[in-house]
């Protein structure tokens, strides 16, 4: 039966060619559908892009805040003011000893003379001169490697230490806010990602509805589920891809608008902080993930439709 067709059927490489042909067919068909409905496509892509841009924007802001807090590394540093009786060689020896400890990343010694020079530079030279001799102690600036709290307690027990200063509270609070922010970005990302998925799903559902007759004809002609599903999967992927690119475009525009004023603000505080956008690898990952999201939404809706249109098993009454 159908022997003429069987004779014309290709071999393994031919079947691979057929598979490629079917994909090219679906690829072109999906692009045709987008081209035929430019406004509808723009709306879908716009809504998806905003849904993607919001959590992505929040994530970028947090990444910049984290980078900024990393720049103010001194907040992690512990200042150990040594007792006035500790001589410079003793301070140097102590610094050398501390550098050998596993919980310490670095130790910098600030001598009384250096401290005096800094104060003079800050315009307090006259007041220091009035005091006669240099009243400043040697100070060790310790950069922790591990747990800061334990290190501070340990440094406070040093016999040479007079005062150990470590303002860790604000840093802990900032870390807490950052953790909360990242989690918020994640939750928003999941929720709005789901929203984007539904937007694609609904658009593809409407497209399926408008092409119901065409799909029925294809089914009557013997189209497999894969053949029917494929153009819609491509369509979903296109929507996702365009929405991802659009979202990155929106964020880039936002970053461009904010970069100048923020840089001026940072300069006013003596910082060279600049706003960082998405790096190319991250941008590519966002576009690929968005395309996958679109593909997933389209796949779910098309699969549901195809399950509904299968003939009921024998013996079961159909409507």
């Amino acid at each position, binding site marked *: 039966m159908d022997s003429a*067709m069987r004779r014309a*059927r*290709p071999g393994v490489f031919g079947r691979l060619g*057929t598979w490629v042909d079917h994909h090219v067919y679906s690829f072109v068909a999906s692009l045709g559908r987008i081209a035929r409905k430019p406004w509808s496509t723009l709306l879908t892509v716009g809504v998806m892009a905003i849904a993607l841009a919001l959590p992505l924007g929040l994530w970028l802001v947090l990444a910049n805040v984290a980078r900024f807090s990393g720049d103010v590394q001194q907040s992690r540093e512990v200042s150990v003011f040594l007792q006035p009786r500790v001589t410079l060689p003793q301070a140097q020896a102590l610094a050398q000893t501390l550098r050998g400890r596993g919980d310490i990343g670095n130790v910098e010694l600030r001598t009384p003379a250096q401290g005096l020079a800094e104060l003079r530079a800050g315009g307090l030279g006259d007041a220091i001169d009035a005091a006669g001799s240099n009243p400043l102690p040697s100070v060790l600036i310790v950069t922790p490697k591990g747990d800061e709290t334990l290190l501070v307690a340990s440094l406070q027990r040093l016999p040479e230490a007079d005062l150990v200063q470590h303002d860790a509270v604000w840093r802990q609070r900032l870390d807490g806010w950052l953790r909360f922010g990242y989690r918020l970005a994640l939750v928003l990302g999941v929720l709005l990602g789901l929203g984007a998925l539904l937007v694609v799903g609904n658009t593809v559902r409407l497209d399926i509805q408008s092409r119901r007759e065409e799909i029925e004809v294809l089914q009557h002609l*013997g*189209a497999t589920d894969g053949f029917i599903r494929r153009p819609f999967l491509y369509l979903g992927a296109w929507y996702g891809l365009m929405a991802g690119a659009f979202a990155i475009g929106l964020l880039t525009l936002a970053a461009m608008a904010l970069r100048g004023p923020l840089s001026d603000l940072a300069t006013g505080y003596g910082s060279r902080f600049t706003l960082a956008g998405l790096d190319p690898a991250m941008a590519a990952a966002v576009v690929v993930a968005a395309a996958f999201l679109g593909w997933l939404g389209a796949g779910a809706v098309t699969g549901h439709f195809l399950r509904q249109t299968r003939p009921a098993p024998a013996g079961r009454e*159909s409507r």
Partner: protein
Amino acid sequence: MSVLRFDNVSKQYAGGHVALSDVSFEVQPGEMLFVTGHSGAGKSTLLKLIHLAERPSRGAVLFGERNLRKVHGSRVSMHRRQVGVVFQDHRLLTDRSVYDNVALPLILRGIRRGEIGKRVRSVLDKLGLAARERALPTQLSAGEQQRVGIARAIVAEPALLVADEPTGNLDPTLSAEIMALFASLPERGTSVMVASHDLGLVKRMKKRVLVLDHGQLADDISPEDLADA
């Protein structure tokens, strides 16, 4: 072996409507026959059971050696590729050209592009549509559209062609042309089954006729008996 066999087939839709009741018949390779009966007699349901748009409630539909009750999943589409279907309303894809519409069954079968071109043009030529291959279906007359539908149904040389009221919207001259076309198909090994309520047309064709009445096979008239009638 018969191309198609119905063994005591019944079909009851949800709501209790019995569309077919204990229908049995066979179709031989290269045979052309008509299914006739009043509106609602079960003609369309019978055709739907053949290309698996519906499944029987009871009995067996055998396509060659294959029991269609046991055809599921991707095999449904494989089965449908062996049955050409012509619809009364043509069901052409309006955004694709005549050529693209006719090429569809071959694309679905994974036939190579070069071969598709040859086969499509050959069929279009036979049906007098060669000059219209780039036209969209909406640019064609009703008769041309029906011929495109037939071209699409026969281009892949199916074992069986089923046509549901294929001349329902056509004038008598066009109807006769379409029927002559169907009558030529068995020569190429394709069995043809046409559902029609146009008794005059059916009688003129002098082929076997299955008469359905309220879902039951009321009569199975051979061409000879029809000639005598």
